[in-house]
């Protein structure tokens, strides 16, 4: 009879630390646990008593891989609290900067973190010799994403220019035009990317679940809109707590989320499942080519949804640059007047919907903060996926099961280092 004893300590090629434990005896599954041994970082405690400007500066440091998302959610929460209206120019630049991160993170994920599994290697590094063209293409796309972040945000990680109310420094129109050129060229690399992934065998596994993402009637939402669920429709971001419903479970160390069902998913696939029709034409075409159709219930398809989104983001970045260059860029002094109040910012980080919820006093000093991170919302869905997946593949070897589970975790592109300030921590080794 089948005996399983899987203990993956610190899943690799993910951001942050997560462990998988599976035990089966006599063919009977005894235990499956997805747990998080990341060190807690206490950001909410550190934010308390600090001025809004300090908070803006600190929030990117929650996570190196989605620093722009944290920065944007944070700025939007503060703006909501103070009632700051931003200009059209700021909105365009913010979207453009946000796209930079979606690009950075997605390219990193599908090429550097996920692709090695499909190509039968342990990392991108050996591919330098065996798949030189693939690696060079990945590096080109990553560089493009980083160059865009540099141009709008001042650097690749931990953006500098975005502040409450606007931007502390603007790009030159000539620089935007040069960037546009590079984005147009990158579409060729994305076509090649589609070809490559089309040829890869994505594990076939489905489990119906609820998909939650921002939704904006005007566009494929990243930094605006309401919270949409494939089960229950839309609600305002102000009632995010009714959606995220964080709770503790006895068998795991992490706080989990659930809404309408056992669990829900956020991220590229959740966005796709809610908003596919708003994707750019080239992205829709890529989705079709890659066999991605809403509503898709296969979590391994998250990487594919990321590829589709990458194409959308490149196309939309080109449109945003066109709008900005037609308007011309004007220096604006961000009009910020502090006042007491609470504000909520919600954005679609690469890994899914992210909430920052701040309460300020009348001097602009933060008195309370709550951040709900996408990976946290996915933990429960990862757990439930594992519970469904393992019995389906229990006849395979322990190595194969382990790989499939690791690939599952990686597909979610978890960003644990930023999720952990919410997690209960216990070492399982």
């Amino acid at each position, binding site marked *: 009879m089948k005996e399983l004893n899987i203990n993956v300590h610190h899943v*690799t*090629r*993910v*951001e*942050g*630390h997560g462990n998988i434990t599976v035990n089966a005896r006599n063919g009977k599954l005894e235990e499956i646990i997805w747990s998080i041994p990341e*060190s*807690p*970082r*206490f*950001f*909410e*405690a*550190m934010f*308390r008593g*600090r001025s809004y400007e*300090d908070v803006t*500066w*600190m929030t*990117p*440091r*929650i*996570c*190196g*891989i989605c*620093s722009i998302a944290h920065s944007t959610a944070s700025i939007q929460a503060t703006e909501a609290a103070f009632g700051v209206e931003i200009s059209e120019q700021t909105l365009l630049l913010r979207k453009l900067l946000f796209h930079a991160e979606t690009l950075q993170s997605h390219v*990193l994920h599908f090429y*550097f*973190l996920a692709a*090695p599994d499909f190509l039968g290697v*342990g*990392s*991108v*590094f050996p591919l*330098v010799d065996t798949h030189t063209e693939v*690696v*060079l293409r990945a*590096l*080109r796309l*990553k*560089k493009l994403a*980083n160059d865009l972040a540099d141009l709008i945000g*001042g*650097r*690749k*990680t*931990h953006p*500098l*220019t975005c*502040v409450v109310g606007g*931007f*502390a*420094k603007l790009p030159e129109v000539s620089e935007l035009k040069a960037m546009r050129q590079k984005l147009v060229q990158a579409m060729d690399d994305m076509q090649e990317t589609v070809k490559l992934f089309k040829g890869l065998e994505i594990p076939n596994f489905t489990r119906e679940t609820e998909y939650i993402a921002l939704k904006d009637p005007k566009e494929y939402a990243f930094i605006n809109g309401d919270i949409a669920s494939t089960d229950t429709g839309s609600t305002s971001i102000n009632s995010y707590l009714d959606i995220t419903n964080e709770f*503790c479970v006895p068998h795991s160390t992490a706080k989990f989320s659930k809404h309408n069902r056992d669990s829900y998913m956020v991220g590229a696939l959740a966005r796709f499942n809610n908003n596919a029709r708003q994707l750019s034409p080239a992205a829709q075409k890529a989705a079709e080519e890659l066999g991605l159709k809403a509503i898709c219930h296969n979590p391994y398809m998250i990487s594919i949804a990321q590829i589709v989104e990458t194409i959308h983001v490149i196309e939309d970045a080109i449109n945003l640059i066109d709008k900005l260059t037609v308007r011309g860029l004007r220096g604006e002094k961000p009009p910020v007047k502090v006042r007491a109040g609470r504000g909520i910012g919600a954005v679609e980080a690469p890994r899914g919907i992210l909430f920052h919820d701040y309460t300020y006093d009348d001097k602009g000093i933060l008195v309370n903060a709550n951040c709900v991170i996408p990976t946290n919302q996915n933990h429960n869905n990862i757990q439930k996926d594992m519970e469904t997946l393992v019995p389906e593949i229990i006849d395979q070897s322990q190595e194969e099961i382990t790989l499939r589970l*690791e690939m599952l975790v990686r597909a979610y592109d978890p960003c644990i*280092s930023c999720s952990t300030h*919410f997690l*209960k*921590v216990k*070492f399982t080794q």
Partner: protein
Amino acid sequence: MKPKIGFFDFTSCEGCQLEVLNFEGELVELLKLVDIVNFREAMTEKSDDYDIAFIDGAITTEAGISRIKKIRKQAAVLIAMGTCACLGGINCLKNFRTMEENLKIVYGDAAHYYDTIPARPVDAVVPVDYYLPGCPMNKDEFITLVKALLLNKKARLPNYPVCVECKLAGNVCVFEKGETCLGPVTRAGCKAICVTSGRHCWGCRGLVNDPNIDSEKEILQKHGLTTADILERFRHFNGYLEVSK
């Protein structure tokens, strides 16, 4: 023999490891010179046979203390990479509250015991051979250090304040714009990127070897900061240092 290098993460945002993956122009060349044998964020294989260890993150748990000691034993060269590893960084902000209070704020009534201790830089636990400060660390300094190690040459960080690079960048001084800045006492090497991008220096690279803190404090006060403001400013990244106490 190519030296074997490993990247090890402690408490951080992992942005500094990410920076390594951002070496688009250099990654391919770099891999000709070194073997990366341990890099959890990017690869599955892990080996405990390495010569050079890059440490990302501050030490904030008891488990972290024993782990860093083990790494120190193995590594011939140990490098603190990024502000968290070099200085404790932003993690040290929690040190100004009791650990119990932090736990309560973040985890509420559900809080019970977690493995958390006051945050500290790597060199508060084990000796560090080289430092790559910055939040995030600076790619050029990383590459320069790797080349120096390979050529058996000395690598040194600038021992002058950010003002040098800020002036050379042609920036208008932050103080002249009515704001305040830690540039005059903060170690350069960042090319004053924050000021160049319209912000001010928060001291993420730590202090120069012999900073004139009294003078800087006097200047900050003259420009409107209270003593408490000044402490808070230093604490952002330098909470572990005397200057923040």
